[in-house]
């Protein structure tokens, strides 16, 4: 006679799985059914540990945060994923760049991928501005959050630079002349641009140190005008350089949100 009924097969399977060494080596806490395990679930997870273990109820009110920071991060992830897929097809050379963009729209399966990347970029610029607007209107830039405000300003600039470098990659007339116009601003950089203030002072006798072939714009474009050097440089900056810096600053940004008293709200 059985003294107690056998447990259902699902329960026994679940118990067996959660008792294995593999499971226990990955999850070092029990089910998040009490506040201790819920805290451990956040703290022992590399992706979640930047997030506060507990946040104020007001912090998740959409009316207060608009969720614009989170939306911006989500759009960054969308851009990273769609951009990675585009990299499998796009070749950053004068001979191929424009044709590959056309191919991405017309031949490559799921031709909407490039449009997702483009619209995601537009949406990210908008959400970054709205996030900044919300932070300003709620006074969340005030001490002790002033450092994080500055990190956010740098992230805003990096977002705009990502848009600017991505602008050139389709390599059509709009792209080339837009970057020609935009990069001409670098000519007026103080001391570093050959038309900028102070550039005339940097000369050895009659030999100018800063000229059209050695100034900031030249370093940016890898040449005197927007050509193949500029296309390759902008591609590398767009896909590796700026996302890397932005990723590091985002980690700092999210971490400081937690350290500076949680998502906004009164201190």
């Amino acid at each position, binding site marked *: 006679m059985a003294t107690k009924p056998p447990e259902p097969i699902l329960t026994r399977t679940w118990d067996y799985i959660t008792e294995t060494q593999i499971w226990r080596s990955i999850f070092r806490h029990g089910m998040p059914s009490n506040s201790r395990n819920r805290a451990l679930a956040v703290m022992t997870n590399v992706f979640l540990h930047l997030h506060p273990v507990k946040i104020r109820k007001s912090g998740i009110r959409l009316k207060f945060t608009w969720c614009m920071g989170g939306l911006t991060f989500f759009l960054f992830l969308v851009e990273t994923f769609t951009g990675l897929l585009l990299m499998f097809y796009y070749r950053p050379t004068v001979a191929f760049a424009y044709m590959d963009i056309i191919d991405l729209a017309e031949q490559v399966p799921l031709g909407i991928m490039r449009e997702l990347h483009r619209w995601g970029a537009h949406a990210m610029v908008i959400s970054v501005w709205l996030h900044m607007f919300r932070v300003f209107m709620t006074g969340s830039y005030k001490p002790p959050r002033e450092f994080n405000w500055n990190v956010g300003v740098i992230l805003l600039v990096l977002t705009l630079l990502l848009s600017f470098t991505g602008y050139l990659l389709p390599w059509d007339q709009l792209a080339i*002349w837009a970057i*020609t*116009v935009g990069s*001409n601003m670098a000519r007026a950089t103080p001391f570093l641009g050959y038309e900028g203030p102070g550039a005339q002072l940097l000369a050895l006798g009659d030999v100018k140190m800063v000229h059209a*072939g*050695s100034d900031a714009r*030249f*370093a940016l474009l*890898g*040449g*005197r*005008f927007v*050509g*193949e*050097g500029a296309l390759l440089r902008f591609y590398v900056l767009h896909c590796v350089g700026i996302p890397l810096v932005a990723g590091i600053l985002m980690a700092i940004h999210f971490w400081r949100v937690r350290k500076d008293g949680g998502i906004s709200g009164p201190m």
Partner: protein
Amino acid sequence: MSDGQDSASNPSPAPGAPAAPPATAAAAAQPAAAPPAGAAPSAAKSTEPSGLTRRLFLWSLPVGWVAFAGACVSSLIASGRSLFPNVLFEPPQSFKAGFPSEYNVGEVDVRWKDAFGVWIVREPDGFYALLAVCTHLGCSPNWLPTENKFKCPCHGSGFYRTGINFEGPAPRPLERARVVLADDGQLLVDKSVKFQQEKGEWENAEAFLKA
């Protein structure tokens, strides 16, 4: 120093190594006991395997850090320098533009515009070379023969055939390049030497080649 402590705590050393522990203990203790200044005793000098005195070790610290910082800074400079290419795969700044007889009087010649970004204008009394770079934001204007003007497609700046701006946002006239006769009788255009009208530089002899 651990050797010295071991031998001190063990008054009767093992028979396998009778004399070595006291000798190393003495050598290790010698620099600590002696004052830092002055020559080390000859006995300690002979037993020191590396020749690294305390003085030499302390001096090597700042020297090492300075060398390390120098290596870091110079590799940083080298990395920055690598972004400035030595060889450009661009058209050269100066080029020969054919013989004067190949140009028709009163015409704006566009044959060098795509390759070098230069228009050569033949007037009854000579030549001048206009740079095809809009003075507004740097786009490349087009020569419209029927309207007898240069027109920039980006923001609509317009220039007379002389290069003087008359419409749109361009703040100043197009720039002219140096144009002279080469030894073989061809026109030689040098874009690295520019002449600006608003600075009175169009009066320069090399801004206008008399025919």
